[in-house]
């Protein structure tokens, strides 16, 4: 790592933190990002793409067999009517949330470090939402009537029940997917124009040129564009919080012990951001190494992401504790039984995998050495995602498998088709991600350029973030009125 401790530390005297290392000029940023798309397909890419494509094929087989035979091919039984299908759904929706957090919420908070990772994190969101939408779609059994979920006028004069959280979910996740695509595409327009203007083959010129919509980088265009971007960020922020809240209401609005708790919405949102950041770390470690973007996606970015994982992981741990407290304080024997059964019953192994992966392991991020060590970050990002998958499994299956009457107790064991659907969904995700890094600029160059020091037109002054402090201190340059905003 060519990065020193001093570069990682924010130096309040010298000015704003260095986000991009090796002080590249504007063209060097364009070059490194666009070149990754324009060069011949590297052999290494096929090593990721072909296995992912094979898993996607497996998903195709599993889903086809499911449609042919019905959901009986999964390990579902009478008390456990939801298991890996909905676990996978909640897992994938949660993964998506970090992308929106990075692209929208950190944008509103003026966290400029997001510019290096927001494009690929948003792509991750879209692909995760695709995986997520798959599972409720296929778990309905009779997929040919899945359109009943939408309020379409039909010959039976039937309408969906808008009072049901399951229908709120249909709307929340599909709106989330649509808005994520819009946000991502708007962010892509200037970079697609870059690809158009650099294109050497007519194929690229037409395709990128068509998608870039004739963008001319004009300031009058940027004026509307930046407003649109800000508005979309402001819309995506409450949207992303609402999506996982609605997902949690699928459970919380029922009267099942283990599901019927008011803590679910914030607890689910924290867990979603936690697992999503872990997935961003996994992907970014691979991308920065494979495409030599170490100076754009720096250890500082990983340091910040590790801090977010530490915070959200601890919030999740706090929520686990609160659930136990609430069940004890409620005095309800069914509530108390459900939680004792979670920690000590037949699924105790799953519960303790969840606790060790999600609550205990991220505590290592209290140490800066761990936050800036790529091997530790990579290993923990995978551990955390295993833990977060188990969290959804624990919530869903342990709450269901011991019903109110001991005569209707059961145990869920997955079949090979459950496993095929889960790993097949990873195939879908990684296939899409491989295609993304091959054909689209994976870093938002027009945004990264704005955080370079020379992008600031108010020469001699530090970037905007610091000018307010500087104004109070004579001798450090006088900011222009524009710079003070």
């Amino acid at each position, binding site marked *: 790592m060519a990065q020193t401790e001093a570069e990682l530390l924010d130096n309040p005297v010298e000015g704003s933190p260095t986000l991009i290392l090796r002080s590249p000029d*504007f*063209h060097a940023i*364009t070059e490194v990002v666009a070149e990754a798309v324009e060069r011949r397909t590297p052999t290494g890419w096929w090593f990721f793409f072909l296995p992912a494509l094979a898993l996607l094929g497996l998903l195709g087989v599993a889903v086809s067999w499911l449609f042919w035979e019905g959901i009986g091919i999964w390990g579902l039984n009478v008390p456990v009517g939801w298991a890996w299908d909905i676990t996978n759904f909640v897992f994938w929706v949660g993964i998506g949330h970090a992308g929106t957090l990075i692209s929208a919420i950190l944008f509103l908070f003026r966290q400029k470090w997001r510019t290096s990772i927001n494009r690929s994190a948003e792509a991750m969101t879209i692909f995760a939402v695709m995986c997520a939408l798959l599972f409720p779609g296929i778990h309905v059994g009779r997929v040919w009537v899945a359109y009943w979920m939408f*309020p379409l006028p039909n010959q039976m004069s039937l*309408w*969906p*029940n*808008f*009072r049901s*959280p399951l*229908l*709120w979910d249909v*709307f*929340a996740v599909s*709106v989330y997917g*649509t*808005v994520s695509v*819009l946000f991502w595409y*708007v962010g892509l327009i*200037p*970079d697609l*124009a*870059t690809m*158009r*203007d650099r294109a050497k083959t007519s194929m690229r010129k037409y395709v990128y*040129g068509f998608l870039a*919509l*004739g*963008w*001319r*980088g*004009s*300031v*009058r*265009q*940027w004026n*509307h*564009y930046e*407003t*649109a971007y800000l*508005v*979309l960020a402001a*819309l*995506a922020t*409450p*949207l992303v919080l*609402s999506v996982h809240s*609605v997902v949690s*209401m699928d459970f919380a609005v029922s009267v099942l012990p283990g599901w019927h708790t008011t803590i679910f919405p914030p607890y689910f949102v924290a867990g979603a951001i936690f697992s999503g950041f872990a997935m961003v770390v996994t992907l970014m470690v691979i991308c920065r190494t494979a495409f030599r973007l170490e100076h754009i996606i720096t250890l500082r970015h990983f340091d910040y992401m590790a801090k977010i994982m530490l915070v959200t992981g601890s919030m999740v741990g706090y929520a686990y504790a609160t659930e136990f407290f609430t069940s004890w304080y409620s005095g309800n024997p069914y509530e108390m039984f459900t939680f004792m059964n979670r920690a000590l019953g037949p699924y105790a192994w799953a519960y303790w995998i969840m606790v060790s992966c999600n609550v205990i392991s991220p505590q290592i991020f209290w140490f800066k050495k761990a936050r800036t060590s790529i091997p530790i970050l990579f290993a923990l990002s995978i551990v955390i995602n295993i833990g977060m998958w188990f969290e959804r499994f624990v919530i869903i299956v342990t709450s269901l498998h011991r019903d109110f009457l001991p005569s209707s107790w059961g145990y869920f064991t997955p079949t090979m088709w459950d496993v095929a659907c889960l790993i097949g969904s990873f195939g879908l995700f990684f296939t899409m991600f491989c295609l993304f890094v091959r054909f689209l600029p994976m870093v938002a160059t*027009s*945004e990264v350029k*704005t955080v370079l020091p*020379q992008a*600031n*037109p*108010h*020469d001699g002054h530090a970037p905007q973030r610091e000018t307010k402090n500087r104004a109070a201190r004579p001798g450090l340059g006088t900011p*222009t009125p*524009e710079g003070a*905003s």
Partner: protein
Amino acid sequence: MPLLVPQLPKGPHYGILAEFGTPTDLYHACERVRDAGFTRWDAHSPFPVHGLERAMGIRRSPLPWIVLIAGLTGAAFGFGLQWLVHASAQPLVISGKPYFSWPAFIPITFELGVLFAAFGAVLGMLALNRLPMHYHPLFRSKVFERVTDDAFFISIESWDPRFDSAATRKLLESLGARSVELLES
């Protein structure tokens, strides 16, 4: 289709295109072009330069109003749809709730409000920017290809009342332009 093709000035020339080396040069040049009283002109940069729209004297985008209207329309549509279904078209007693159980309608009202607002933001932005517009006289310039990479430009259109191909070229050169080019229409 006025949205998809550029409005072109009459006459043989579209205007003048001047390249500047840095965002700072562009910023100061824009201030001077603005003060010279030009109205039909633009600046071009690979990324949004901070404060440049003020240096050019551009007003704030009216886009938030479009988004507000679109969002309210979506929310009203969502709420109205649920009222129509549960209180008017197909009144059914579900879990003993009243037909018009409006608190249960809020999540979908919110989601559809956001959906419409997001489409309002994107389509509104494209309409205000007159995009998609795949042809434009500026694309005839070879140097203009670097506008999405590392080059900064000012373009002044020939139908500006103050436009004069010789004097405007001189002005842009005096502002530190690296190169000045007369573009055909």
